[in-house]
C-alpha cells in the first residue's frame, strides 16, 4: 500500500448549518506535490485548517505524517511548514529578526539554506514585515517555512494576489525542495499548479469530486469534436462520461472524461455512424475544471428545474 503523508477518512466540518466539508476521503502520497483545487468557498481552506489542527472536525479524522491531526501541536510542527495567504506574521519584527526567532524552534534549521533562500528571494532583512509588499511578505513566510527542511509543506492559496514574477520565484523554490518533501497546496489558479503538481484533487461545495495523479487526469480528459454530414439532434442516453455535449450545425462537441483511445473511437462510431471526421484534443487543467464545474452546475440546475414544479405544487 502506498505510504500516505496525509490521509483523511470521512472528514467533515460544519459551521452551524453550513456543511463546509462533506465526508472527504483523501490520500496524499509521500513525495507528491498535491494540489487541492476548487472554486472560492469550496472548502479548501477548511480542509487545510482541519489538517493543521486549527479547526476540529465535526466527523471523521485525518492523519498527518502519521499523527492524528487532533494531536498536532508543539513539536509535531517541527516537521511541517505552513504558509497561508491570510496568515498573520509577527508584523513588528524585521524579516531578519523573524528568521532569527524561528530558528530557535527548529533543531533541523539549516542556516546555509536560510542564507540561500534570503539571497534567492532578495529579502530585505532589516525591514519590518509590516513595511514589506505582499509578495515580499510571502517570500519571507516561505523562507521561514522552508529553512528547516520540513517533511511536509502545506500551502493555502500561496500565490493568490502575487505578480507573475514572484509566483515563478516561489514555484521555483518549491520545486527545488520537492525531492525531499511532500507538498500539499490549495489554489484556484489552475494554470500555475498544472506546471508542477503531481497530484490533484477537486473540491466542490465541500465534496471531493476526484483525487488522482495529474498524468492520469490529463490522460482521461479529451475535448472531442465530431463533424457530421448534416446537422443532427443529439441522441438521448449519451454516455455519462461525455460532459456538456452540444451541437452547432454539423459539429458535435463534448468533453470526454473517461478517454481511452480504442474505446472512445468505437463508442463514437456507434453513436454517430455518419461522422465524417473526429478529433480528440488534450485539455489544459483549466479546461478540465471548467468542464467539470459547468457540468456540475448544469446538473444542479437540471435537478432544481426538475424539483421546482413539485415544490411549487407543494
Amino acid at each position, binding site marked *: 500500500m502506498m505510504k500516505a503523508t496525509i490521509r483523511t477518512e470521512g472528514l467533515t466540518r460544519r459551521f452551524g448549518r453550513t456543511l463546509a466539508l462533506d465526508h472527504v476521503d483523501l490520500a496524499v502520497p509521500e513525495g507528491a506535490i498535491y494540489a487541492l483545487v476548487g472554486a472560492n468557498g469550496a472548502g479548501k481552506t477548511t480542509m487545510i485548517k482541519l489538517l*493543521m489542527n486549527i479547526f476540529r472536525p465535526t466527523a471523521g479524522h485525518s492523519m498527518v505524517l502519521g499523527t492524528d491531526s487532533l494531536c498536532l*501541536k508543539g513539536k509535531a*510542527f*517541527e516537521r511541517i511548514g505552513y504558509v497561508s495567504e491570510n496568515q*498573520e506574521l509577527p508584523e513588528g519584527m524585521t524579516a531578519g529578526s523573524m528568521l532569527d*526567532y524561528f530558528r*530557535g524552534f527548529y533543531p533541523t534549521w539549516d542556516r546555509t539554506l536560510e542564507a540561500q533562500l534570503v539571497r534567492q528571494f532578495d529579502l530585505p532583512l532589516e525591514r519590518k514585515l509590516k513595511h514589506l509588499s505582499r509578495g515580499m511578505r510571502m517570500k519571507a513566510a516561505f523562507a521561514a517555512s522552508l529553512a528547516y527542511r520540513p517533511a511536509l509543506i502545506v500551502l493555502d492559496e500561496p500565490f493568490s494576489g502575487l505578480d507573475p514574477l514572484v509566483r515563478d520565484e516561489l514555484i521555483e523554490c518549491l520545486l527545488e525542495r520537492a525531492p525531499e518533501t511532500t507538498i500539499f497546496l490549495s489554489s484556484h489558479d489552475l494554470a500555475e499548479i498544472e506546471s508542477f503538481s503531481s497530484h490533484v484533487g477537486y473540491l466542490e461545495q465541500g465534496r471531493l469530486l476526484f483525487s488522482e495523479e495529474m498524468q492520469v487526469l490529463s490522460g482521461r480528459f479529451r475535448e472531442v469534436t465530431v463533424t457530421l454530414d448534416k446537422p443532427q439532434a443529439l441522441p438521448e442516453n449519451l454516455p455519462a462520461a461525455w460532459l456538456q455535449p452540444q451541437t452547432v450545425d454539423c459539429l458535435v462537441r463534448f468533453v470526454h472524461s473517461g478517454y481511452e483511445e480504442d474505446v472512445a473511437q468505437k463508442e463514437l462510431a456507434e453513436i454517430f455512424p455518419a461522422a465524417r471526421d473526429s478529433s480528440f484534443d488534450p485539455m489544459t487543467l483549466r479546461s478540465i475544471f471548467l468542464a467539470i464545474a459547468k457540468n456540475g452546475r448544469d446538473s444542479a440546475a437540471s435537478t432544481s428545474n426538475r424539483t421546482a414544479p413539485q415544490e411549487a405544487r407543494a
Partner: protein
Amino acid sequence: MKQILHIFTKDVRRFWPEILTLLALVAAFVLIHSYIWAVSMRNDGAASFGGTLGLLTTLFGFLVVLIPVGWWLLIARAVHEERLVGDTQFWITRPYEWTSLLTAKLLFVVAFVYLPIFLAQCVLLAEEGFRLQPNIPGLLANLLIMTATVVLPLIAIATVTSSFSRMTLTLLGALLVFGAAVTVSALATTNQMSSPGSGLITPVLEIVLCAAAVLLQFSLRKTWLSRSLLIAFPVLLCAIAFLAPDQWMINRAYPVAGASAPVQFTHSPSVLRPTDSGSLIGSNNMNGNKTYRIRVPLELSGISAGDGIASEGVRATIEAPDGFHWSSKWQSAYIKYLPGDQFGSADITVPSAVYDKYKSTPVTVHLELAMTQIKAARATTVPLSQQEVQVPEFGLCTWVKDLGMINCRSAVRMPQLTLISTGQVGYHSQGNQVEPGSYWMGSLEGNPGEMHIVPVRDFGFTSYRGRDGVGGAVRMLDPGTPVTFTQYKAIRRLQTSLTIQNFHFPAQPTLNELRDAQRAAQ
C-alpha cells in the same frame, strides 16, 4: 526551559520601549516619593503643599494611577503578541508548547510588572525607616492581592481578546458589568454588615475563574468557553448574593454563645431621661425612606478581667402589644468596650413608620449582638517626642508639636487593632468622634496585605491637654507625656442577645435640649 527563555527574550526585544516607559514611571514614583519624604522630614513631618512640592505631590498621585495603566498596556502587548483568539496567527502552526508560551508570558509579567514595583516598595519602606526583612511577607501578600484584583483579570481579558482596542472595550464593559453585579448583590444582600470572610468570596471566585479561563485558552484556545467562564463571574456573584442565607453566614461567623457567653448585656436606662429607654441620635431621609437612629444604653457584666469587646453588628426585633412584629437587617456597629468598661450602647436604625406608630407605646425589643471578644496582647509606652519612635508591631510615630498631632506610619498594611492612649484629649484626624484620652487604630481582621502601590500607611490624630475655657486656646501636651499603644487580638467571635420589655422609644429632642447638647459638646 529553552523555549520559555526564547519567547521571553523575543518579547523583551519587541517591547523594550514599553518596558522602559514603565520602568521610568516606577523610577519617577520612587524619586518623587523620596523628594516629598525628604522635604517632609526637613519640616518635622509638616510638609507644606505649595509650589514645586504641590506639583510633585499631584504628579505622584498621577503616577499611582499611571503605573497600573502601564501594567495594562504591557500585559496586553505581551499576550496579544501571540494572541490566542483567531485562526490565522503565525505561531499556532509553529512548534510552540503552550506551557512554555504561558510560562514565558508569566515570566515577562513577573520581570516587568511585579519585580519593579516590589523593588520600588522595598526602597520606599527602607526610606521611611522600616526594616525590610519582617515586611517581605506583607509585600508578597500585597503582590498576591494585586494579582487577584488587577493582573490576573487583565491577563484573562487579554487572552480572550484579539487586540488592545478590543481589550479596552471589553475591560470597560467588564467594569460596568462588575459594577452592576456588585449593585445587584448589594440589593440582594439583606445585611448591612459583612460577615468576616465574606469579603474573600469575590477575590477567590475571581482568581479561580480567571485562572481557569487563562489555562483553558492557552492549552486549547477555546475562546468562547473561556469567555463564558469570565462572564460567569458576575453571574455567580449575583447568584451567591441571592442564594447565600445571610443569617447562616452571620451565625457561622459569630456562633450563638447562649448561656456560656463570656459577657452579658442588660438594658441600662438609668443614665437617660427616666421616661425614655434610649436616646434619639439622628435621622436620615434617603430616597423618601426616613429612618431614626436610636441609641440603646447597655450594661456589660461577666467579662473576664483584661478582656474587651468589639461590637460589630446588631439586629433588632420589635414586637408591639397589638401583635405588630418588625425585624431589622444586621446593622454594622463599631463600638468597643475596653477591659473594665461597664457601660456601652447599641445603635439601631428604625424606619419612621415604626417609630411614629409606637413612639408613645411600650414595645418589646429583642437585640442580637455580633461581637468579638478581644484581649490586650502587648502594650508599649513611649514618651511624646519629636524624634521618631518605633512602636513594635505597630509602626513609627512622630509628635508634630506645632500641629499638636501624633503622626504614625505602618508598613504594608494597617496595624492590628490598637488603642492609642495619651491620658489626655484625642481627636481622630479623619473623623470627629471624641474619645477622651484614647484613639482606636487598625483592625482585627489581620489581613496579610492590602492593595496599595504605596506600601506605607499614614495616619494620625491630634492630641492636646484641653482648652482654656469653652472655645479657648488649645493647651498642648508636654514633651515626655507618655503615650501607650495597646494592641488587641481577637479571642473569639460570638453572638449574644437580650430582650428589653416595656421599651419606650425616645422622644425627638426639643430645641433647648439640642442647644444643651451643643454646649456640652464644646
